[in-house]
């Protein structure tokens, strides 16, 4: 049973949308924050056999415990399937074992390139961001990439100041020319909608807008003229069950409130 837009936060809807990107049995590079909640939700609903990879050196096929703040919290190790090193886990990524990777970012552009390093001119940045972490690796090496981000014009830009995590570069064939052997963005899930990428042009389009907004509002909050195809529709809202499961996983609402 779907619920009203007033009954959930944008972050909760993002978790639901992210969970739906995970197919049962897939190997998922999880990362932290909303993707971790999405992974837990997917495992408790349609993808019980999904496997989660964490760059600190963990693989989990059991449900992550509730209330995690970081992937290194002891309860995430307890009951893991493999506790090892970063290179061993990222070797799985480089080998091509990872079906889906999640990352966040400060900026994304119309070809899905993501910046998490700096804002402003690279030689004299106005804002120094924390950096790639594992994001650039996940963007280069997983088969499908989903990013999550706040939707605002300064975040969805025509061109990012710095490509930390490559999307489709400047368009079709760019990844192949760089030597990337697979992958590319599959979706960008924002606080306002879900963007996907055109098979021919590699450019982002609005696949759905969240129920509490409109396609026009989403376009207005985007830093380039966002393509809105005829099939663009509201994002399916969370079910009551999904919301309950998210709130069990994030009991303090640390990431979703």
């Amino acid at each position: 049973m779907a619920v009203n837009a007033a009954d959930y936060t944008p972050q909760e809807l993002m978790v639901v949308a992210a969970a739906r990107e995970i197919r049962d049995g897939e190997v998922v590079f999880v990362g932290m924050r909303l993707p971790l909640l999405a992974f837990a939700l997917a495992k408790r609903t349609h993808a019980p056999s999904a496997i989660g990879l964490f760059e600190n050196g963990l693989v989990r096929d059991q449900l992550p415990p509730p209330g995690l703040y970081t992937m290194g919290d002891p309860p995430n190790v307890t009951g893991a399937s493999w506790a090892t090193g970063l290179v061993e886990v990222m070797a799985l990524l480089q080998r091509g074992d990872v079906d889906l990777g999640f990352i966040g970012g400060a900026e994304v552009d119309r070809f899905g390139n993501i910046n998490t390093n700096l804002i402003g001119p690279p030689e004299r940045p106005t804002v120094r961001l924390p950096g790639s972490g594992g994001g650039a690796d996940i963007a280069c090496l997983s088969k499908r990439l989903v990013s999550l981000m706040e939707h605002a014009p300064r975040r969805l830009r025509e061109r990012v100041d710095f490509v930390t995590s490559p999307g489709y570069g400047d368009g079709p064939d760019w990844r192949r020319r760089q030597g990337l052997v697979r992958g590319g963005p599959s979706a960008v899930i924002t606080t306002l909608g879900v963007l996907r990428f055109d098979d021919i042009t590699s450019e982002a389009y609005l696949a759905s807008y969240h129920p509490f907004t409109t396609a026009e509002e989403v376009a207005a909050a985007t830093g380039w003229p966002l393509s809105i195809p005829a099939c663009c529709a509201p994002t399916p809202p969370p079910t009551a069950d999904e919301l309950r499961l998210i709130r069990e996983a994030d009991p303090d609402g640390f990431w979703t409130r």
Partner: protein
Amino acid sequence: MSKLVPLPDAITRFVPDGASVALGTSLESVIPFAAGHEMVRQNRRDLELVGPISDILFDQLIGAGCVRRVVAAWVGNVSAGLGHNYRRAAEQGVPRAIDVEEHSNLSIGLGLLAGALGVPYLPTRTLLGSDLVSRNPRLEPLEPGLLRVGAIEPDVTILHVQRADDAGHAHAWGNLGVTKEAGLAAESVILTSEEIVPTDVILSDPNRVPLPPHRVRAVCHVPGGAHPSPVQGHYGRDHVAYAAYHRATRDQAGFDAWLREGVLDVPDRAGYLDKVGERWPALRPLVRCPAAPVDYA
């Protein structure tokens, strides 16, 4: 010959000004905060910090003016995102300008692995098409579809472990990040340990040992030495401390006050834990999760 020394002695001896120091090798857990704080108290200068994700320890050392250069994939506060001192240093040169060699987690892991293996570089398929490549001299195109990651060889790697003996044998469990690579790549290793145990305890389980003991130069008994980061089997993460640090350090004056109270005016780790107060015992796990028995006969 015992390698057990007080932490200040280990820092004095193996972390000189200008040293390249790997810290935070397990990412968000077992970060050697006590060792970092001792570097601040000894007013260490011109350090190069190496690590994938240091959480706030790098931010603290940068704010204290100890740092000349950072080799990292991510510098910030895992709970809150940005690290204020890192921003001030990188954007405004406050308290001093720092050089940043920016990596991804895999590239820093492979750089340390190259150092551990004793080869000048390793090839990788990551970072192709990323702007990180043009800004990092340790990353170079090798052939189509491959980059080379140059070896990273810290002068010293500091690891916090659950237990060690006085000869440098140790046990570490949980997520290991780049612990093994950084420990093997470095000239010296300093261990800070929750417990000091008899050698027999460690030798009873040699697969639990992260590093060959001959590479360990000093062992320091520092219970609580990773707080506010967690130590599997000992204590959880002190989320409150991370949030409080983020709020307190928004400006330089705030950081200076935090540093004075939390580091400079604290004689040692026991004094520090006293200041953490009631939160400290509350971080102890409430249940036991024993590993299944193993027999080495």
